[in-house]
């Protein structure tokens, strides 16, 4: 193999596996020396090309892709979907506002009276003094004659602090809730689900909610509450 061909081949690919080149180098120390020199230069070239890479480049590439994908997902929704979503949100909020003070509050009432048996079985009946102490925070006062009150505890109905009285009647238990009237405005006057029936009314500065399984008993308790409970404004 002539020198020029040998050198051209080595220069084009210093790590060539061409058998003719390997053979030629074996038989010619000058060619061998040339090849070694080129290989050394090649190592230096590789080292020179191995320039520093910004430390955070990989993180940036991943972050940028994540952001871009996120933006595209957002942008993919056509305008009418966005409008529909907006309307849906508005109506959900509106319904939520309209129902939050009644629907979910009454829902909380039902949830509380489900635990009524447990509360009422805890001990003896509650005396009038301790009930009036608790009613004081609503500026309220109860006169004697309400009947047997088994429990008087504060509880939260839709985040509103209320006083929950469990009253024993002829046909079982009924509940009376006392709430501040200004935060419990929109409770329906009459409400019911498949188990309980209830009514709500204003007594001066308080909102009274009465709930029980027996409609007649609820009416009776409501009557007595109107007579015996006073709330100063």
């Amino acid at each position, binding site marked *: 193999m002539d020198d020029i061909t040998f050198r051209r081949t080595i220069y*084009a690919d210093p790590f060539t596996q061409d058998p003719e080149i390997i053979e030629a180098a074996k038989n010619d120390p000058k060619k061998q020396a040339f090849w070694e020199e080129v290989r050394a*230069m090649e190592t230096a070239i590789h080292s020179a090309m*191995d*320039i520093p890479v910004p430390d955070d480049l990989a993180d940036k590439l*991943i972050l940028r892709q994540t952001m*871009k994908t996120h933006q595209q997902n957002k942008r993919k929704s056509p305008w009418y979907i966005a409008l529909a979503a907006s309307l849906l949100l508005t109506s959900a909020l509106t319904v939520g506002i309209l129902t939050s003070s009644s629907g979910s509050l009454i829902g909380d009432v039902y949830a509380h009276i489900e635990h009524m048996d447990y509360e009422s079985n805890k001990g003896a009946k509650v005396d009038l003094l301790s009930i009036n102490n608790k009613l004081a925070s609503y500026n309220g006062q109860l006169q004697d004659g309400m009947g047997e009150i088994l429990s008087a505890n504060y509880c939260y109905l839709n985040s509103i602090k209320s006083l929950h009285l469990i009253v024993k009647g002829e046909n079982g238990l009924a509940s009376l809730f006392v709430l501040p009237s200004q935060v419990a405005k929109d409770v329906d006057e009459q409400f019911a689900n498949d188990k309980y029936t209830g009514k709500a009314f204003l007594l001066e500065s308080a909102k009274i909610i009465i709930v029980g399984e027996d409609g007649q008993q609820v009416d009776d308790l409501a009557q007595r509450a109107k007579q015996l409970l006073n709330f100063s404004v």
Partner: protein
Amino acid sequence: MFGNKIDVSPVSTDMMTKQKRYEALVKALHADVFRYAVWLIKDRAIAEDVVQETFLRAWKSLDSLQDESAAKSWLITILRRENARRFERKQFDLVDIDDVSVSDPGASSDGHAENRQLRKAIASLSDEYREPIVMQVLMGFNGDEIAKQLNLNKNTVMTRLFRARSQIKEIMTGDQAVGVQKNG
């Protein structure tokens, strides 16, 4: 010195989410792709931008990458296309880039004198010589792969590789001691 040569292992694509595949691709190849971009563009800042665009485009068409072992040349193909798009977009920048940043890859202060000198020598090669040798040395492509990337026949590629090294040698020694004719 020869670091960052980890190939993406042929992990079952079924098992990997697209996100995981992408992150593996970034981690394994971002350094070499970035280096390639710097040598191609000769400006670190622009190179980084083009690498960003390259990987974004890679993400979009990641499903078309069936064979992870082909990832390197796939990314270089995308990178070269993105770089060409840059010229289409900003023709006015061309002159500035060539004038200002010609020795940028060598401008880094790391490495010893020979390294810096070699970087200048490589950077001073014309594009048609610089790109094949960077593909060969940095990316580990063989003659056929380079020919495919550059849309040239293999003989032309081998000639350009030979001339690239001849010119580097000339610059480094200041003569033609290796006895290679310039027009060979």
